């Protein structure tokens, strides 16, 4: 399978006469774009903003991030989600780089939503603080979940994906500045020199814990709660086969942008033929019931063994309950003789003394740790707020609170905030970017 990602580097975003991309400047015709968004009659209110690094902007409640992309051959960027089913991972896709579409609730947030700061001390807490962002701030008529802590955010998230595809139309016919090529043939009958290298699978555990539909990550539009682990080509992940969901405290989440750019897959690609033989991806999931967790671990270990994998990397999109899936999967792989590395964040509590994962096993002897859900963060007021900051305290965001005996409310009258890292949008970057680690003090 061969994927060519044609890159267009966005240096600046402006609102202009028409949708265009020229010399690094992405120009968006705002009224037309908003009209497009409002084609979904669930959207009751929408506005677009530009947020670039250094801007005095705080966003909350942030729901999703998507890299704007388009396929010259007309296939949907997210097959089975923004358009008809078609294979992903093959052919040509054009991407606007250093750029993301962010979706922010105009008013209402939930457990799974987060915060992004574009400048100051808070900027470093998310990957998106360093990108040029097109920010869709919108509200919907989905009144059934307005006051629910768990929200599907369906209209808003779909609007974001459609908008990302809509914006990237402007580079559909253009010649990319640079093309990244990802090509990996069948797992067997590879070059003998490559086959001599230790073979490795990347095991992904995307968020799929909600039994009710509409919250989980989607795979070609299919709810990942409805699957057992399966084999995927890494290109499919990089090319829109996966769409992020709306469940799990957000610092542990993977945005759609994260799937599209998965740095761990790219790193394994770079090592392929040098130090490892990268076989591909085992797409697992995360579950609630113990039997489901065990079933998935059993499948992953079986697939890895059947493929003849010498090594594996397991990464979980979650913390807390999903740690059991994560640890269980690593143990099953190690028991099957597969040398396994884990990538996860930790949750050590306000005093830093809690057990870092809800379950531990000494077979997990090689862990890359990407951050701490419980880290307390205090940030000064920000000039501009996109969305409604009060949501952090009011709507049950996982890292915020309405009031605390010692700390007071998460959102103070002057616009300063105190929160746990838990609500930093995709902040622990378990997907692979995290420059953070954990240390004992």
């Amino acid at each position, binding site marked *: 399978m061969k994927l060519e990602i044609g890159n267009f580097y966005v240096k600046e975003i402006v609102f202009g006469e028409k949708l265009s991309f020229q010399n690094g400047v992405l120009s968006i015709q705002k009224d037309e774009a908003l009209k497009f968004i409002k084609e979904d009659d669930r959207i009751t209110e929408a506005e677009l903003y530009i947020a670039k690094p250094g801007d005095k902007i705080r966003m909350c409640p942030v729901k999703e991030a998507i890299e704007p992309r388009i396929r010259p051959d007309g296939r949907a960027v997210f097959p089975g989600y923004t358009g008809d089913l078609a294979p992903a991972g093959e052919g040509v896709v054009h991407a606007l780089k250093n750029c993301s579409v962010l979706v922010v609730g105009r008013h209402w947030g939930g457990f799974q939503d987060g915060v992004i700061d574009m400048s100051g001390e808070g900027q*470093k807490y998310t990957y998106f603080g360093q990108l040029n962002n097109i920010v869709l701030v919108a509200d919907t008529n989905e009144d059934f979940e307005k006051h629910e802590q768990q929200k599907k955010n369906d209209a808003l998230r779909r609007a974001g994906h459609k908008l990302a595809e809509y914006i990237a139309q402007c580079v559909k016919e253009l010649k990319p500045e640079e093309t990244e090529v990802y090509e990996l043939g069948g797992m067997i009958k590879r070059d003998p020199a490559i086959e001599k290298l*230790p073979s*490795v699978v990347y095991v992904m555990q995307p968020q799929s814990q909600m039994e009710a539909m509409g919250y989980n990550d989607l795979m070609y539009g299919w709810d990942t709660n409805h699957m057992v682990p399966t084999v995927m080509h890494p290109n499919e992940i990089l090319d829109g086969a996966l769409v992020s969901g709306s469940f799990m405290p957000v610092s542990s989440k993977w945005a759609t942008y994260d799937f599209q750019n998965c*740095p*761990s897959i*790219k*790193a*394994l690609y*770079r*090592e392929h033929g040098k*130090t*490892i033989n990268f076989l591909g991806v085992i797409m697992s999931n995360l579950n609630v019931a113990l039997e489901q967790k065990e079933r998935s671990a059993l499948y992953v270990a079986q697939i890895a063994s059947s493929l003849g994998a*010498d*090594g594996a*990397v397991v990464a979980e999109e979650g913390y807390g309950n999903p740690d059991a899936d994560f640890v269980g999967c690593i143990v099953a792989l190690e028991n099957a003789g597969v*040398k396994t*590395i884990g*990538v*996860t964040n*930790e949750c*050590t509590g306000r*005093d*830093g*003394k809690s057990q*870092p*994962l809800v379950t*531990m*096993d*000494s077979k*997990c*002897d*090689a*862990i*890359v*740790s*990407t*951050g*701490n859900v419980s*880290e307390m963060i205090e940030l000064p007021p920000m000039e501009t707020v996109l969305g409604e900051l009060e949501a952090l305290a009011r709507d049950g965001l996982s890292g915020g609170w309405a009031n605390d005996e010692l700390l007071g409310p998460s959102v103070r009258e002057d616009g300063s905030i105190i929160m746990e*890292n838990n609500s930093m949008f995709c902040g622990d*970057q*378990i997907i*692979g*970017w*995290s*420059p*953070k*680690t*954990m*240390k*004992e*003090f």
Partner: protein
Amino acid sequence: MKKAVLYINQFFGQIGGEEKADYAPEIREGKVGPGAAYSGAGLDAEITHTIICGDNYMGSNTEKAVSEILSMLADKQFDIFIAGPAFQAGRYGVACGTICKAVAEKYKVPVITSMNVENPGVEMFKQDMYILKGGNISSKMREDVAAVTKLANKILNGEEIGCADEEGYFGRGIRRQVWRKDGKPAYERMVDMLVKKLNGEPFETELPIPEPDRVPIAPALKDLSKARIAMMTTGGIVPVDNPDRIQSASATRWGRYDISDMDKLEGGVFKTIHAGFDPAAANADPNRIMPIDAMKTLLKEGVYGSLHPYFYSTVGTGTTQAEAKRMADEIIPYLQEDNVDAVIMIST
């Protein structure tokens, strides 16, 4: 200049060796013994007072010694309290830890000490304070004092304290996120670790998971009707005056209490001192936790052979594995001596 108080034992206080280990605490103006080394190492505080206390005095009259020392400090102004270095000297290390913990609690000032990894004081107190990783013998004095001074100066100057590995203290069981100075992203660390593990090279996990210290399950008793049984609990059941002064949390002490002449434990005679649960039910009827009543009944019915005449008690909440193991090692000889076949361990 900021002010420091130093704590040292009778040996480093130049009172004497083992024969002076019962020396009661005294406070002297200025610096004694290692005090000069701290000034020489550039401590950003003046050592205004030195407390000298015999190791045995502290060990066997702990409460008295601590209260005497705390009152000596009541009218003193100080910005930091330094104890040791204690090297591998066990009693001295425990004394340094004990007094540092008490001073920090009472006077809310930073405390700091230094011990060798083999010193039992490390396991007992590393969660409560900065204990620098020190040498095993006093010839390491200069290095150990320099290490303490470096960290003490950071504390005195309000500088950020780095992680345990960076600063050289024993980890306090507190895990926090940090931004790596080299900014090396997780995906690079993942690949490095993966390739090393695949190639059988040494690698360092970022989340160390301790090897579980599992005890194999003992074989079943062959004949319960002849077995001698002992009773034990971490539920803190003690005579109401708590004669062994067992702590209500993070216990380091245990007691054993004669039950040969009683049919059950009476409320008002026994109680729990465990701080981890509502004690009302246990205080009203201590047999709820230590079921001597049931054991005596079963004995009369001949269900088991005989009952060891004492029950053993400590408090489990916050108690470290190392302390628990030490206490078990101290208890076991009593059981062996009395030919106990089995123990019923009651948790709460």
